[in-house]
């Protein structure tokens, strides 16, 4: 696979666009024609077509450089999007090692890692980085290890400390979030940071998910897909900047909904970290416009049925209740009532 990187913006003129190949490999999150919460974990190993987003441990796609540029802008405006409580320093090094080794193995044409004891050399060719540093020595990096590596890796990253039979959101690089604040949630446990989610707690979802996550083992990562809806291809839908993107949510019309309404999918994965015993929690965001999604007939049919039948409280929580009639009306044009095949991949 030869990647060519786009130069597009997730803000201002919203020049972001998916290539045909990116649309085909979009991680469509619905494996059936309806949706309800579930503990939808599966092993994070290669799956799907050859170019699927599940083929490599940390997927690198055509938006890599654009996403890293967007992250840099967000961090410049609000440095608190990247925070680490003091006891998470070791977990940050764990994460750096995990990502560097995985990327160098999975994308040898893009990344290289040379290790001589604690003396490491990291080469990131797309970003033009060639750095030498001493592993576990913070002073040899320009910033903390978590910040250093996540400025070079697509997706948000939370680092969870494990203690007292719970997981604690004690560090993170969060610049492409679906409306939650790291600065507010840092230090919370698993139940606390999920507190605003309707219905799922009563369904026992969080108890079961936590039990699973506490037992994730080294070398056996897991993953799940989560989703929401975003107007315009905007990564930074944080509560902090809600006054900037809130008005855009009310700008949809029957004429522009296909172009400006995006399905936002999070590929979440969970990795036990070897030294800290923490859990790395990457939250990788993929965006796809409705007009692009419906070019896959199965997805057009299915998304129409899922969004049409979704309980109102979930639509409200996911922030698109106000636009649901427009969206469903648009999608109905692509649903001829034909049956759909099981699973998420295109036919």
């Amino acid at each position, binding site marked *: 696979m030869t990647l060519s990187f786009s130069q597009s913006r997730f803000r201002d003129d919203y020049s972001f666009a998916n290539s045909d190949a990116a649309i085909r490999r979009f991680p469509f999150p619905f494996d059936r024609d309806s949706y309800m919460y579930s503990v939808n974990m599966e092993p994070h190993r290669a799956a799907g077509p050859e170019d699927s987003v599940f083929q490599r441990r940390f997927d690198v796609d055509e938006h890599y450089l654009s996403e890293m540029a967007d992250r840099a802008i967000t961090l410049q405006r609000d440095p608190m999007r990247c925070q680490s409580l003091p006891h998470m320093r070791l977990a940050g090094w764990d994460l750096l090692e995990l990502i560097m080794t995985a990327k160098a193995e999975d994308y040898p044409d893009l990344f290289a890692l040379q290790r001589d004891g604690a003396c490491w050399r990291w080469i990131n060719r797309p970003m033009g980085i060639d750095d030498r540093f001493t592993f576990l020595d913070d002073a040899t990096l320009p910033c903390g290890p978590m910040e250093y590596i996540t400025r070079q890796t697509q997706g948000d990253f939370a680092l969870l400390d494990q203690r007292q039979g719970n997981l604690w959101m004690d560090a993170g690089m969060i610049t492409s979030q679906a409306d939650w604040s790291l600065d507010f949630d840092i230090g*919370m446990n698993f*139940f606390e940071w999920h*507190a605003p989610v309707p219905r799922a*707690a009563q369904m026992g979802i969080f108890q079961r998910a936590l039990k699973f996550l506490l037992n994730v083992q080294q070398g056996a990562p897991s993953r799940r897909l989560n989703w929401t809806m975003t107007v315009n291809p905007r990564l930074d839908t944080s*509560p*902090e*900047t*809600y*006054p900037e993107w809130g008005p855009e949510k009310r700008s949809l019309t029957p004429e522009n909904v296909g172009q400006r309404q995006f399905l936002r999918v999070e590929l979440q994965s969970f990795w036990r970290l070897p030294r800290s015993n923490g859990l790395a929690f990457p939250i990788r965001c993929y965006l796809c416009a409705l007009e692009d999604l419906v070019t896959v007939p199965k997805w057009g049919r299915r998304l129409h049925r899922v969004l049409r039948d979704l309980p109102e409280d979930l639509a409200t929580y996911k922030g698109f209740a106000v636009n649901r009639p427009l969206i469903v009306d648009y999608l109905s044009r692509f649903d001829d009532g034909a049956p759909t095949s099981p699973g998420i991949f295109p036919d």
Partner: protein
Amino acid sequence: MTPAPANRIPSHPTYAPLQPRPGHAALMIADAGGAVALAQLLAQAPDLRATARILLVAADVPPDLPAVTPVPGTEALEAAIAGALQGARMGLQAYLAGSQGLIGQAQALLLAQGMAPGAIQMQQCGGPARRMQCVHCKTIAPDVVIDPYRCPGCGRWLYVRDHFSRRLGAFQGVCIDAETPGLVPEPTEIAP
């Protein structure tokens, strides 16, 4: 003490009445409303009087409380707590009583100083006023009694969420008219 409403979300703090616990020392922090709760606690467990140290915030010192250090206002609380924790040892128990704003702030300061959450008890006394953080400009409003309220930092109208951060000792305030600028509902009093 009324039970917490069943619809409260899990990050919403619950404040049980203070109970005496064994410990080498006791640090008590209260405002005028909470001083009564401390007096009741000390009446219930007179042994605590010998080791208790009390920070009383913005209140006249009642005659029945021992070892009181007056603190002029919440802005002086951080320094007062830092002073009180000088030389503190494992086993210290903290007892907080007062408005949600006071006990939320005091808990956040104690946690920042390294106290374990399990060593801090809290009892809410007084009205439903909440300590709020504006998620946009991060300004803390200490005693918010209406929803929505106007952020004293950025001037935005914020709605009062139930989501609570122990680390900040505050609930979250979010712009209420972000999607429809200028459309702000009439504020109503926060329910207890």
